């Protein structure tokens, strides 16, 4: 198939230099050596092209042939993505395992989407209709959760539908339609190819207005993210980045989830996979696997493919967004991606900046995060991509380049705190360093659910937490006893809030997912307690009495209750506390 375009003249790790006898373009895909290892052209200098190779380059020699079709590295987008696990350049890992065994051999060429499998296609357009890029030609019920819409590829010009297949079972490479445009007839298949580094077009970006409900109290209530937002989750090792990512992949109310394991542990991917084949979505009762695409490029897999895996993930996310879905993309971890960038940059002898990272690191980060967002698609529907990307700062130091540059391109920041993690307060999201700029955008949604109280309560609590932070400084110096009762109450309320509300166990069957309604009730109960306690303290009730009261004890164990009991409890708070007055 591919022609010989040149030969190798130098091999240095994953970077290979090629002397070209034919012209070759930037980002063209090449296959190097007799094993035909897949690579991509990343730099051209006179007749020499530099390619980063996505597989281990051991045994490549100077003089080995290089092949290319002169097309960029592209993904196959079509039915068969969901529930599947791919490597960083979209090779299906299950299939590779069936072909090659438990270890990943080199030079495997296998199509991303299964060509054998038949999908039931139902056309929604008819012959003779006018058709534009992004239009929906038909539908395939890919899994019981997701209807896969077969789209006209964005790069096909407007035209007339001259043929569309009848309802029936077809494989992905079956020609299901033909479009006549400007005298040409363009065939459309059930799958389309799209270059991995190019963003898929849309009509326009619109602002986000609905929160992504994650069932995690600290996130939904204090630092919410909107559907179409970008979040960064930085944290040193052991602070629980991965668990946060897993929880969101499991419980967030996105319609499609793309989970990218970028340079992380192999066992973590196994964990997600094993879990998702068992776990059931609380809203639909279907397996979570049915709405999830996995990209796994673990830390011991080739570094160049790790660099590509992030783009593979977001391109797939865009494809589902184009169908009108709310997609969540989890990337764990973007630091590994940045390090891959650094390694490849070093091999190409580029000038390094801070910590050895290349000068284009911020530009690449910006490009990636801008592919998230809520948009009106080419076909007029709305879809969104929420990007939730973790960052692994060396030594847990948030001033390092990847964290600090990332902060410029995201609007929601969940800082993971080592001290919280050490005391097993999970999720270890710091209430002091984290922030969300989406509060105003999604305020309306929360207000409609909570009688307009959410923002007010949120401000009260954040204020208390700030005050508590300052009071703790004083306590460290002079002890808690000297504080007046009103200030001691702040400490107590925050103690309840931290233990009974913010702390949430991912491994407890009831606590792992907390519905928005219950979150608000718990929130409400704590505020009610605090307001009433303030009043009682003025009337002379002591802190010890409050702490030993039955209301206090019940507050601490709120998570175990169901919504009905909580409502009853909230209604009884004031009355119960009145009894403390003697």
């Amino acid at each position, binding site marked *: 198939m591919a022609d010989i375009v040149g030969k190798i*003249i*130098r*091999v*240095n*790790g994953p970077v290979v230099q090629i002397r070209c006898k034919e012209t070759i373009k930037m980002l063209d895909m090449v296959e190097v050596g007799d094993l035909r290892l897949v690579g991509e052209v990343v730099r051209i200098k006179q007749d020499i092209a530099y390619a980063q190779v996505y597989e281990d380059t*051991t*045994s*490549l*020699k*100077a*003089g080995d042939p290089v092949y290319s079709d002169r097309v960029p590295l592209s993904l196959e987008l079509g039915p068969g993505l969901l529930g599947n*696990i791919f490597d960083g350049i979209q090779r299906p*890992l299950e299939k590779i*395992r069936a072909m*090659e065994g*438990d*270890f*990943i*051999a080199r030079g495997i060429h296998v199509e991303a989407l299964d060509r054998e499998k038949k999908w039931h296609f139902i056309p929604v357009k008819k012959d003779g209709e006018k058709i534009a890029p992004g239009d929906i030609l038909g539908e395939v019920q890919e899994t019981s959760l997701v209807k896969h819409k077969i789209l006209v590829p964005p790069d096909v010009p407007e035209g007339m539908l001259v043929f569309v297949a009848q309802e029936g079972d077809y494989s992905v490479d079956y020609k299901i339609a033909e479009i006549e445009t400007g005298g040409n007839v363009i065939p459309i298949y059930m799958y389309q190819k799209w270059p991995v580094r190019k963003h898929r077009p849309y009509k326009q970006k619109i602002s986000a207005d609905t929160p992504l409900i994650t069932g995690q109290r600290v996130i939904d209530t204090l630092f919410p993210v909107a559907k179409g937002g970008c979040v960064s989750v930085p944290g*040193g*090792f*052991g602070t629980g980045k991965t668990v946060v990512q897993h929880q969101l992949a499991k419980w967030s109310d996105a319609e499609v989830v793309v989970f990218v394991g970028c*340079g992380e*542990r*192999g*066992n973590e*991917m*196994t*964990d997600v*996979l*094993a879990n998702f084949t068992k776990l059931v979505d609380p809203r639909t009762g279907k397996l979570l696997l049915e709405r999830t695409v996995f990209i*796994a490029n*673990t*830390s*011991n*897999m080739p*570094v160049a493919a790790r660099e590509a895996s992030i783009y593979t993930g977001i391109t797939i996310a865009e494809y589902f967004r184009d169908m009108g879905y709310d997609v969540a993309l989890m990337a764990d971890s973007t630091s590994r991606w940045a*390090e*891959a960038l*650094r*390694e490849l940059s*070093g091999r190409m002898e580029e000038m390094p900046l801070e910590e*050895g990272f290349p000068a284009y690191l911020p530009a690449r980060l910006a490009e990636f995060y801008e592919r998230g967002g809520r948009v009106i698609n080419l076909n007029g529907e709305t879809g969104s991509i929420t990007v939730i990307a973790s960052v692994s700062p060396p*030594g847990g*130091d948030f001033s390092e380049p990847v964290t600090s540059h990332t902060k410029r391109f995201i609007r929601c920041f969940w800082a993971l705190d080592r001290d919280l993690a*050490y*005391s*097993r307060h999970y999720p270890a999201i710091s209430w002091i360093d984290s922030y969300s700029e989406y509060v105003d955008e999604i305020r309306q949604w929360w207000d409609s659910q909570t009688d307009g109280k959410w923002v007010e309560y949120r401000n009260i609590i954040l204020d208390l937490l700030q005050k508590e932070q300052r009071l703790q400084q004083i*306590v*460290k*110096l*002079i*002890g*808690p*006893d000297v504080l007046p009762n009103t200030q001691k109450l702040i400490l107590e309320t925050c103690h309840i809030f931290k233990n009974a509300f913010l702390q949430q166990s*991912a*491994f407890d069957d009831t606590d792992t997912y907390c519905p928005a309604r219950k979150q608000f009730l718990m929130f409400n109960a704590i505020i009610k307690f605090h307001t009433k306690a303030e009043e009682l303290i003025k009337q002379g009730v002591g802190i010890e009495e409050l702490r030993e009261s039955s209301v206090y*004890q019940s507050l601490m*164990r709120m998570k*175990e209750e169901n919504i009905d009991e909580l409502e009853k409890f909230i209604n009884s708070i004031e009355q119960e506390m009145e009894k403390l007055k003697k």
Partner: protein
Amino acid sequence: MNMYNLRQYTNLEEIAGQLFVIKNIHNVGYNEIVEITEETGDIRIGITLEVGENYAVVQVLGGTSGMSLKNCRVRFKGKPLEFGVSSQILGRIFDGLGNPLDGLPKPVAEEEMNVNGMAINPAARDYPENIIETGISTIDVMNTLVRGQKLPFFSGSGLPHDMIAAQIVRQARVEGEPFCIVFAGMGIKYDTARFFIRNFEDTGVLDNVVMFLSLADSPSLTRLMTPRFALTAAEFLAFRKDMHVLVLLTDMSNYCEALRELSTMRGEIPARKGYPGYLYSDLASIYERAGRIKNKKGSITQMPILTMPNDDITHPIPDLTGYITEGQIIVDRELHARGIYPPIAVLPSLSRLMKDNIGTNKTREDHPSLASQLFASYARNREVKAIASIIGEEELSALDKLYLKFGEIFEEKFVNQGYNERRTLVQSLELGWDVISVLPPEELVRISQQQIKQRYRYKK
């Protein structure tokens, strides 16, 4: 293999440190082995680090001392570094490049395996399960070790990490299932190697141990190969011979320093503290060779030991290790100074695989919440202690005083145990309840009321 690869060359272009450049060569592959024969007939091994048109850069694993541009013959073998594995490697001691050190002949190879290994397909991995009972309370209850896990020791010089590792090896034997140990010593002193050998002898496991030693006085670059030989042996034993393999790698700090040395020699751009930017990927290529594979009986559990330079956990070596391994056990200088053995700092220690492998039907139903409560209460103890050191114990509230007492008892009864003391998991859990019952039941918010009723030691 084609004929070109057997060609010999005699003229080197340049020698620098442990690298040399050779020109006018053909058909040499990247990352392949090179055999260098000296006039005396001694053979050294090298690896091609870079190949270009007509030239190659070769890293000599045995060091370049005594080499000149003319006095040696260079042969390119056309294949990557391999280790001849067989069941007979059990009970043997090898150097860092897989040559026997025990005076016995090389075992007959059943198979030649590439020491660089291949990545396990993530779809083929099986999630680690079955805890390994180490008999140490702080590990079993609070940082449970699981078969197929990679759990490192972060230690410092002068701390008893070797003793703890030896105690685990002695106590964690899996009865009834084929079990063996692969030991890789990188840049360690002979005394340390001797300590482990004696320990293996005493416990009668020596016949089930394969050792790879690249001691402190051997050329630093052989250290880079030592863990790869060891893990190749481990993969063979686990996935071909169905054994449960425990791999001890000590000391990973020496490995990383050798890597930095090589990187500097090659003139690469350093990332942090002079370590190369690919330190993470390189460490991952070692640590990720642990785990289980679907439909295979064996498993590889890794316990790397590293000494943190200046006890600094943010140093690149522990930092990047922590990002790859599934938790860490931290050996603490302060506890050690107070005579507590094993001096494991439980708060910063972590086992990531613990959560899925403890509790009902796995260990005991109260295990997860008890562990969580012990962590929370001990963390609270630390805060109280900090306050007490400023305002004095007298000023503390009654509850805070109880927390102080809890901390003392926790460290002395629960953390502290003998070098030869093997506590079963049930013993450790019961001890945990004894200790936590110092605190009033209302404080135990991470334990359900039902479990408190059942197990709390109410004072009579």
